[in-house]
């Protein structure tokens, strides 16, 4: 997931290639970024934050295109920009948020509710690894933390999920 290399090559016309490079970046990484923010903030706020982060990517494309870890940068950007979408700095919108709160298949409701009780880094790590197949290294790159920290998030998150779901049965 890491790695930029989306900058247009030298000597090519700027606008067309810059737009094409940005669109290629979105095609490759956009959904990943959206999934990460939805895991972090829920569907409603996560979508807004993903859009905000991609807006920043476009504004600063000349820098982002050259970054070794553009997703990590944009994830941090999104976290700081998220404050405008949140009612309280420490309390993000409820995960999973609408429309899943009312429209999710019934066999997912208990799992979604349990995920909502996890701490945010745990939920992001658990969902990206187990729902979307990211490697621990990919998550570590996104969160800008050591792989051992991701391991902790996964271990704690899965243990807490099992505990919550057992309690709720």
């Amino acid at each position, binding site marked *: 997931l890491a790695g930029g290399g989306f900058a247009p090559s030298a000597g090519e016309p700027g606008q067309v290639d810059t737009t094409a490079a940005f669109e290629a970046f979105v*095609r490759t990484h956009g959904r990943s970024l959206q999934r990460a923010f939805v895991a972090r903030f829920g569907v409603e706020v996560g979508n807004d934050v*993903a859009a905000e982060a991609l807006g920043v990517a476009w504004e600063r494309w000349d820098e982002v295109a050259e970054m070794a870890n553009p997703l990590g940068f944009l994830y941090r950007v999104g976290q700081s920009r998220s404050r405008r979408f949140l009612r309280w700095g420490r309390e993000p919108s409820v995960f*999973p948020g609408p429309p899943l709160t009312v429209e999710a298949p019934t066999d997912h409701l208990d799992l979604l509710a349990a995920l*909502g009780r996890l701490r945010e880094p745990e939920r992001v790590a658990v969902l990206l690894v187990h729902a979307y197949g990211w*490697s621990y290294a990919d998550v570590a790159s996104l969160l800008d933390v050591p792989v051992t920290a991701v391991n902790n998030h996964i271990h704690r998150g899965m243990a807490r999920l099992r505990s919550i779901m057992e309690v709720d049965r």
Partner: protein
Amino acid sequence: MNDLETRLRDLGPTLDEAMGEAPAAWPQYPEPLAPIRSRRPRAMLAAAAVGLLGVVAAGALLADRSDDGTIAVTSEPPTSAAPAVALPVLDGFALVLPDAPGWTIEMLGRYEDGHTEVLLRGPDGFLAVSRFPGDRIDEKRAWLESEATTAEDGEVLGQAARIYTVPWGPEDDYAVFEVEGHLIEVHGRMDATRFGPVLSSLHVVDEETWLAALEPDVLMHPEGSEVPSA
């Protein structure tokens, strides 16, 4: 792969479906590197970006996965917080527990924004006892007053407190009060009928009792890295 991992894997498409709105059209950028937010309302930007994401969803499904399709597993266990470092984390924060069997201390930490938190788990659910610095008291109170569906005066740990129900989910209740210039928040995630009795049973305990309630694998929150490691 166990049942929980299977269920999480199956959840991915449901989340994707919820987050993906079909795009009306590919956004047209006015010129390279233009400050897009100055030219478009944020809502349009959001719609455009979400649209982009919707178009590429199928391709990204493949791009996200590891090359070999496996999930890496490292062998390092979580960092346990030995009792010797558990108390310094609290930095003088009152040692409190519900006066009921089965409550244990699952996690504790001191965070970059200056607040300290102890997360307890018991037969009724979860309870987070937090202490916030004085400069956040007004902000926190204002937010709770605006968001809560119910607010009433009460008493917690012998202190006059304000008790709130916040409708994020079915089980969020708060009690806040001030002690020595700090805001103490007790956040319950449990059946609403249980929050009151648990709140009433909170009491200050001695160090020995408190340490005995530490779960064997109690963890420091990662943001608590400023405290000494075990």
